[in-house]
């Protein structure tokens, strides 16, 4: 299928003030020269540890954080260049599901008003039509009609996330960005929400950009996976290829850290420990960003930054040793 979202050389930087001198401006590149594509109807997961830039990348794609450079093409249109009214209309096509269902719903609005908000802002529908759409959305995400009049604090975490999902669906978007949609929920509810997301994807032909740090969740949800480290994509492949033959040492370490229930498997599994801390994001090292923690680093890794190279099957890896 065709590419719905094509992100090329996306960078997001933040200005940081460091002591010493008045005009000493430093930039922190939270997302540095990141490229990926998502096919229509599929799910791309971005995984990485805290601070790897995965959420920032997602926010930049949704135009909620200002991108420094690069292009984000949605169905061929660069949405980074849109401004004002044009941008507002584009928001219909890209919707966001937030991480924390406790802070992502306006505490002063009723559930029904929260779900209706995108319609109020972006569509020209009549009140009756809107009410009908809200009814349908509540049903689609598994909430009862009488819950429409309640306030967010009267719902449980899982129910709140269902409201967040209903809101994201309201404008019939082409792309939904899920920013760790289940990490704030307990495990039983996580499964419900993940299954709901998959069901909705099947029913409405949705495309997901799925941000997560939980590889178990990612394995369940995604068609392809991009692994980020310190603002860079270090490995990008389809799900099977990445889980079976991880190539980047960081990905290998991440996968080895996934807990397994099966005892036999657990005995075989060798955990790769990553020593040390990530480098200072403002003064990045010259070579590979992972070199100081990499178990197999060589001399070249300290001096030359590896590029993201693709093999014949489209499995891309940024490592000198692959």
């Amino acid at each position, binding site marked *: 299928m065709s590419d719905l979202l094509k992100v090329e050389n996306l960078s997001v930087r933040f200005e940081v003030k460091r002591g010493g001198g008045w005009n000493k401006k430093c930039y922190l590149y939270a997302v540095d020269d990141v490229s990926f594509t998502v096919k229509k109807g599929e799910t791309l997961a971005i995984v990485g540890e805290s601070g790897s830039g995965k959420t920032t990348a997602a926010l930049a794609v949704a135009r909620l954080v200002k991108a420094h450079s690069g292009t984000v093409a949605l169905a061929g249109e660069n949405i980074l260049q849109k401004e004002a009214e044009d941008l507002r209309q584009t*928001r219909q096509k890209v919707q966001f599901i937030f991480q924390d269902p406790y*802070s*992502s719903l306006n505490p002063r609005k009723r559930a029904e008003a929260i779900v209706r908000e*995108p319609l109020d*802002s*972006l569509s020209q529908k009549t009140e009756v039509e809107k009410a009908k759409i809200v009814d349908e959305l509540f049903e689609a995400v598994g909430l009862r009609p009488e819950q429409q009049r309640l306030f967010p604090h009267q719902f449980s975490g899982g129910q709140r996330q269902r409201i967040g999902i209903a809101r994201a669906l309201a404008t019939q978007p082409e792309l939904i960005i899920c920013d760790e949609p289940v990490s704030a929920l307990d495990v039983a509810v996580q499964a419900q929400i993940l299954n709901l997301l998959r069901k909705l994807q099947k029913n409405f032909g949705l495309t997901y950009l799925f941000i997560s740090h939980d590889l178990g969740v990612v394995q369940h949800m995604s068609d392809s996976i991009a692994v980020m480290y310190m603002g860079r994509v270090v490995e990008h492949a389809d799900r099977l290829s990445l889980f079976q033959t991880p190539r980047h040492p960081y990905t290998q370490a991440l996968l080895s850290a996934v807990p397994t229930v099966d005892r036999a498997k657990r005995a075989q599994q060798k955990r790769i420990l990553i020593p040390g801390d990530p480098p200072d994001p403002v003064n990045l090292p010259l070579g590979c960003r992972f070199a100081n923690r990499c178990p197999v680093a060589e001399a070249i890794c300290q001096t030359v930054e590896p590029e993201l190279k693709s093999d014949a099957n489209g499995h891309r890896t940024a490592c000198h040793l692959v």
Partner: protein
Amino acid sequence: MTRPFIHEEETPQAQHPFTEAWSMFRKNKSAVGALGLLTLITFGAIFGPYLYPTDPFEMVWMPFSPPGQEGFLLGTDYLGRDLLAMIINGAKVSLMIGLSAAVMTVFIGVTVGALAGFYQGIVEEVLMRITEFFQVLPTLLFSMVLVALFGASMPMITFAIGIVSWTAVARITRSEFLRIRELEYVMASRASGASNLKLMVGVILPNALPPIIVQSALMVGSAILFEAGLSFLGLTDPNVVSWGQIIGSNRQYILDAGYTVTIPGIAIFITVLAISLVGDGLNDALNPKLRQR
């Protein structure tokens, strides 16, 4: 038919917003009492002069007649004027100036604070420097200069009070905006296509309201006190009675006839207290989180 377990719990009942707010407000006994008192004071201010038609400027009896004597419930002041008539007629002025100065304060303060907190950067710098300029002005002195220069009319006094009092509201509003604009639901509204104006007025402001409401209730009180201060210094229209003016004009006789100062003082105290308590009750009633779950 088996139902999924998430459907098993009891649904809290939703009601009309005003019903919910009122039932919450009613639980706060002191606020309800204060509201009753405030209603009484307001009615007294509006209809009192008709029910007790004594002219507050007329000398009705000999000066310094203590409360209760010769049929004058609150006694007479240093010119022999009926203190009860003065309190009743003064209420209107005190309340009007208190309310309108507070409205002006809130209007300027919220506008400045909201713009500064929302846009940040250069807008915030400029607006907050202006706010600080008004903050470091000696407030009473500045108001005195304004009133002395432009005359002691009611609108001018209101303006003089409002222009020096809005800084606190502006700073509170700004700090609330700074905090709330970073929350995810604001980002969610932006992602849903809300314009900047809608984000400010429709999303952030309602959530920033509780401290602003409390502050504005306090503002009504402090505006009444401020007016009293100006009157006390003799800077208001001598042909208009207000509570502060009664205190001011009788201050020389405070040791001989303390009641002439104490009675209007108590009137100010009760009114300010009632307004603060109502503001407090409103704050709780308007917050959906505190309502019955």
